[in-house]
């Protein structure tokens, strides 16, 4: 794997470690941390703050017998289900979002495919599949978009993004990512607002496609 050159900014790593990121972004950040030792180390440093705070909390008295109840449960409580594992190009947090299944792509036209992993009023999380040389339809954002490359690469006005790289696009960025030659580009994208496409789809159709 070539070196990762676009990382998660510190403030998002911190928000993730403190448990403050909305779900859609947390998946992208966790996926990057699963691919990037540097950011993972930073996240673990941030968690030391959480640990230090836990240590200095004034204890709250537990009910009588709490400790015996726990010790008695050690043998009887079922162990937790096995943690999700990486499969192919998809790191564990993406497999978790996929419920352990391979992607079920939907055609968007122009050879572009997507699978919406989750979408609600808070935004969306989806996988995108973009054939080499194809542009992702031009769009602007209402909020923040985080895009993590899992296979291939894309480039846009902000640079070239290869496997493991994350692009952070804010409100005002009208970028037009184009998949680089080679393998199709597969990426994971989270937004905190529905995307508004400027050219590709009429706005009215957006709810149908959940994009």
């Amino acid at each position, binding site marked *: 794997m070539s070196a990762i050159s676009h990382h998660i900014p510190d*403030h*998002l790593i*911190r*928000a993730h470690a*403190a*448990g*403050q*990121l*909305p*779900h859609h*972004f*947390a*998946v992208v950040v*966790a996926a990057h*941390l*699963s691919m990037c030792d540097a950011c993972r*180390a930073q996240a*673990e*440093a941030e*968690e*030391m*703050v*959480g*640990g*230090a*705070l*836990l*240590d*200095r*909390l004034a*204890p*709250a*008295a*537990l009910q009588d017998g*709490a*400790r015996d*109840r*726990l*010790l008695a*449960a*050690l043998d009887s*409580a079922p*162990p*937790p289900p096995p*943690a999700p*594992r990486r499969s192919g190009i998809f*790191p*564990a*947090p993406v497999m*978790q979002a996929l419920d352990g299944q391979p992607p079920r792509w939907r055609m968007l036209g122009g050879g572009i495919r997507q699978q919406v992993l989750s979408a609600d*009023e*808070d*935004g969306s999380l989806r996988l995108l599949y973009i054939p080499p040389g194809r542009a992702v339809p031009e769009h602007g954002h209402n*909020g*923040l978009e985080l895009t993590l490359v899992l296979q291939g690469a894309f480039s846009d006005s902000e640079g070239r993004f290869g496997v493991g790289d994350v692009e*952070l696009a*804010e*409100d005002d960025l009208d970028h037009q990512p184009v998949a680089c030659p080679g393998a199709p580009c597969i990426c994971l994208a989270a937004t*905190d*607002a529905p995307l508004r496409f400027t050219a590709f789809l009429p706005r009215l159709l957006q709810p149908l496609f959940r994009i």
Partner: protein
Amino acid sequence: MTTPDGFTEPTQWLIAVRDRRDRAAFARLFDHFGPRLKAMLLRGGLRDGSAEDVVQDVMLAVWHKAAQFDPHRAEASAWIYRIARNRQIDLVRRRPAVVLEELEEPPGNEPDAPQILALAQEARHLRAALDRLAPEQVQAIQKAYMEDMPHSEISRTTGLPLGTIKSRIRLGLERLRHELKDLKPE
């Protein structure tokens, strides 16, 4: 509080649980963290009864997941904090928190004493830095790490997850981070 090899007592207990399934050490972990976890969960808005149940859940997870604990990368308190925070988020969101991929340690890895000591030293500096903060700063940081749950959206203009009231947190933590960065190897 720390042993000659640099481990805090709770970290030693957790290693004993990991390597020997040591129940006495686990009971000590519970005595130390149980009441603190309950305090954290109460701050997060749980009622007393539910907080008790979640403390049990979290400590059972500690028992079952102990094999993943790596003292080169975390002290017991940070590792247990992560489990508890994820559980807190599960309950609020009603869906499982996102978990990181487990790292596979090469078999037969010997403990790396300098790394462990360096981590212990950083942790000491971090605790000292927390001690030097104003009480309201500590409170603001505690609120971020233990109470506030994920917002439905993060600030639209800057992407910063920490809003106005929380600028204080960032300053406090930035200061913490600079403290850590200024560490000189001994």
